[in-house]
């Protein structure tokens, strides 16, 4: 197990995302029980854990979804207090959430939403907005990478998409928006092996020294394709073990129960 992963202290760069002792409740029930996590630029972290361990809650809270009560703790993104920012401000600052269940928005054109999103981020960065042609050229190249048919772009957001199409669409959005930090919530669930590879390729294409990825996943199979620098196990609302890829493989062999029991003890 890696000490660096445990406390995030390493010489040089300050962490991009720094979560400290985060406690969160939903509808009066405590879901996160003191989570700490440090993610530096360039790193890929995987957060694993059994169902109901609080993985998705962590992603949602960081992205600012309403309905979660922060009891204590803090989260900063590039030194800014994340919880002081509105969800859209977090997004424009470069935080992206890939949804586990992307919602359908009838009548709203997929490309239109994406263009509005991209231009909102560009305005924030002081860049000029892309016109329709520039946008189309960009989105075409990314669609190609994601093996998404162009007709996809003209359809309503997620409406009538299969599970796999929805997930690929999430990654397409991520590639177009080029976030600094991508939180991908169960992006691998519901994918067949070919689609999993396409999605993994997409994620890998975004990797770089400037960007970080947090993969929330139940199974380790995505990690065969997107190799994480760090693996954390979340159980009963706290990180009970951190390590490297070997931990994920061990979990695959042994399951989660032994760690959950240890945590309870």
């Amino acid at each position, binding site marked *: 197990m890696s000490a660096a992963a445990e406390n995030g202290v390493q010489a040089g760069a300050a962490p991009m995302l720094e979560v400290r002792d985060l406690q969160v409740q939903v509808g009066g029930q405590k879901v996160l029980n003191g989570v700490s996590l440090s993610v530096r630029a360039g790193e890929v972290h995987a957060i694993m854990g059994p169902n109901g361990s609080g993985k998705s809650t962590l992603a949602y809270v960081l992205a600012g979804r309403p309905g979660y009560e922060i009891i204590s703790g803090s989260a900063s993104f590039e030194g800014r207090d994340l919880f002081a920012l509105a*969800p859209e401000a977090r997004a424009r600052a470069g935080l992206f959430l890939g949804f586990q269940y992307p*919602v359908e928005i009838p009548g709203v054109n997929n490309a239109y*939403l*994406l263009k509005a999103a991209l231009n*909102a981020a560009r305005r924030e960065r002081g860049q000029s907005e892309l016109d329709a042609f520039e946008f189309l050229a960009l989105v075409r190249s990314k669609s190609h990478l994601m093996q998404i048919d162009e007709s996809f772009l003209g359809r309503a957001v997620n409406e009538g998409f299969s599970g796999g199409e929805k997930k690929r669409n999430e990654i397409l959005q991520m590639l177009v*928006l080029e976030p600094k930090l991508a939180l991908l919530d169960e992006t691998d669930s519901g994918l067949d092996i070919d689609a999993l590879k396409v999605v993994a390729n997409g994620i890998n294409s975004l990797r770089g020294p400037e960007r970080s990825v947090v993969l929330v996943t139940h199974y380790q199979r995505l990690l065969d394709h997107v190799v994480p620098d760090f693996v954390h196990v979340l159980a009963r609302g706290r990180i009970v073990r951190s390590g490297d890829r070997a931990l994920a493989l061990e979990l695959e062999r042994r399951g989660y129960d032994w760690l959950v029991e240890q945590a309870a003890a």
Partner: protein
Amino acid sequence: MSTADLDALVKRSYQHGFITDIDSDTVPPGLDEDVVRLISRKKREPQFLLDWRLKALNHWQGMREPHWGHLRYKPIDYAAISYYSAPKQPGGGPKSLAEVDPKLLATYDRLGVPLHERARLAGVAVDAVFDSVSVATTFKERLAAAGVIFCPFSEAVQRHPALLEQYLGTVVPYTDNFYATLNSAVFTDGSFVYVPPGVRCPMELSTYFRINAANTGQFERTLIIADAGSHVSYLEGCTAPMRDENQLHAAVVELIALDDAQIKYSTVQNWYPGDEQGRGGIYNFVTKRGECRGRNAHISWTQVETGSAITWKYPSCILRGENSIGEFYSVATTNHYQQADTGTKMVHIGANTRSTIISKGISAGHGQNAYRGLVKILPSATGARNFTQCDSLLMGKQCGAHTFPYLEVRNPSAIVEHEASTSRISEEQLFYCLQRGIGSEDAVNMIVSGFCRSVFKELPMEFAVEAQNLLAVSLEGAVG
């Protein structure tokens, strides 16, 4: 979205609520034969029209205000309304735009009515009706070259009395209903369109109506005739200034499409809706009906209703000609204390007639929104078809959506389909947009526009954007 943001958005005021300070020529309140005669005299009308008005008045005096709408409001005192108001003009009406009172033009400017060069650029001919008297008509010459008559109703009375006598009241007779009958007695102006056989009208025709003087009702009357094989697209936009008292608006629109003719009638209605407490606002009791009188005729109504305290209107189609087509596309929004009871009637008389109804109701605040639609298939309408889709979107917890579909099928070969849904803007949809960096106001607009898409795409291009903007303004802050 924070509570403070919400409050600020909700309180954003009606942008067209200014009052133009112009001397008006207004008759005292009340309605009797003298008032009708006065209006007719002011308009220098032929005898047949005066007689028609008097018959309407006589009929109206024996009628009762209908109360079957899903609407609540204090009784209207018809004796307290002034039935004629016109801006005072030295030496008769204006001959050109240059003679029009600059204050009036400034009013149109603030409303964004495209006159002067803007009109040419937009390709829109505007017949602007200001408190019952048309003050400016553009592009008459270009239309005249195509043989299209587009003029204020009062001008048509002088110049085309034969056409009027032939068609007026043939779709909406003076006995039709309480408000239409009242209109028949006291209407003061409106628009008149005649498109000759085989002519495709070279531009979109558009009228902006505006109620300005306090305590006046506005009673326009519009008559559009598309002769055989012709085609016309007409847009009506409406705005009124802010006042604490309610104002009555009872218009009548009649459309007549002969063989193979097509009329597309689009309305963007933004009458003053009243304030957040429901004070003031326009009472909009309107009768709109088109008749597909010839074979293969086609009438299409598209309406975007964002204004008025009360909306009571059912743009309808009488499908008399064989193979004729009637369409109704509607977006109606009610926010704050607005109430809308709106829908359509499709009356299938001819064989193989087809109709489509797409209705999108959006309710926010304490708004009440009712769809009321009749599909009537007569025994003669062999092979008739109707498709109705009726969707409601609720924003908030105190608003309401209601659907009253009526079906009368008296021909066994008819096929009638009805789909209906009610939904809310979900927190998930909103959060999804926010998480993509789209602000909450834009996100709501995007979701609502998506909901209305199948209607907006029926609007002429240049007005689709306006409609979308209006919708955005009228629903601002409706979701938290």
